[in-house]
């Protein structure tokens, strides 16, 4: 296991999510582990998908291999794990700030089990008003819902608590 200051971790951590280009896979909590084999020097990167059907995962895997090759580690292996299941709670504070700055309302707490987390209100990331309404539970990608601000009338995406 590599520390977060190691060049191999930094290389993998530089990969951005192709559907949320303001976030890196480190911000998202998708990047789980980077390990270097002591004998062969081969790097293994462990990631976990946001959603099982997320079409971005193939691109992310390719981008990780390319980023490590560029950092002097060709032939990196990317391993995908499914447990523990990814949660929006894993998005870092930096990630949440980047989302808000990009006009995407960050998720509330997801909790652990049970039914769909109750979304009480989502603040408009554009004007800050709390007077907003959900237009659609499912947005432009699997992880977003579509909202509208009643104050500034602008539509915006909200990353659903998951």
């Amino acid at each position, binding site marked *: 296991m590599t520390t977060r200051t190691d060049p191999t971790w930094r290389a993998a951590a530089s990969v951005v999510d192709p559907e949320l280009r303001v976030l890196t896979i480190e911000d998202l909590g998708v990047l789980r582990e980077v390990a270097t084999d002591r004998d062969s020097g081969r790097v293994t990167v462990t990631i976990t*998908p946001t*959603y*099982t*059907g*997320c*079409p971005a995962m193939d691109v992310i895997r390719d981008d990780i291999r390319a980023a490590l090759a560029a950092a002097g580690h060709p032939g990196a292996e990317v391993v995908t*794990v*499914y*447990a*523990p*299941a*990814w949660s929006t709670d894993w998005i870092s504070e930096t990630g949440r700030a980047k989302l808000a700055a990009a006009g995407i309302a960050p998720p509330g707490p997801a909790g652990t*089990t*049970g*039914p*769909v987390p109750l979304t009480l209100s989502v603040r408009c990331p554009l004007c800050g008003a709390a007077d907003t309404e959900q*237009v*659609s*539970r*499912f*947005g*432009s*990608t*699997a992880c977003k819902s*579509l909202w509208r601000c009643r104050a500034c009338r602008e539509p915006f995406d909200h990353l*659903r608590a*998951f």
Partner: protein
Amino acid sequence: MNPTDVPTQTRLDHLLGLADDALVAAQRLGEWVAAAPELEEDVALANIALDQLGAARLLLTYAGELEGAGRDEDALAYLRDDREFRNALLVELPNGDFAVTMAKLLFVSAYQLPLYTALTGCTDERLAAIAGKARKEVAYHLDHASLWTVRLGDGTEESHRRMQAAVDEIWPYTHELFTPDPAAPVDPAGLRDAFLAAVEPVLATATLDRPADGWAPSGGRSGLHTEHLSYLLAEMQVLHRAHPGARW
């Protein structure tokens, strides 16, 4: 039960049952893309289909590795015939009108949610991990179908009539989902209480009658399907069979 105590063929049939439910449900939902009543619903159904497809891919890949005959997810999805599919009849039924699609989604997700939740604690770690992902997604599917069932059932006279007709039409097919199977990692027979606890309040809120239990068509789990599955597979498989190994 320890998974290693169960014959491989039995475990394979269980995995294919889970995988085929998800795969066939995904294919049916995909038929709504560009045809849903509103753009937002188009996007929602496509997202739900993608969740089901994602679970199907993981389960089929696992089934192929367990079988050990060199079949990957594509071989299992595209090169099996209808008699080899293990999905329940409910998911292969035609979409009908939007109310029928929502009744199907309500019943499937109200079955899959307690199923995946229980599988999360099973001794097969790989299956438990897949179920742990799918459980979170299915909670949203159930929520979505519940909202629409209430909106249509407690809506206009016409939407109420259609939603009731849809529930009546699909209800008999829910029984097959709970056919007892003590060798399964989670015996489906034990899930019906949780299913009813999720579905009955939704029907009541939607001012819909909960149909009486009676006719209970089955056969999907042993490969005896309705004619609808053959047409669905023909469309899903034609490209792969006409151009083996085609990529884009």
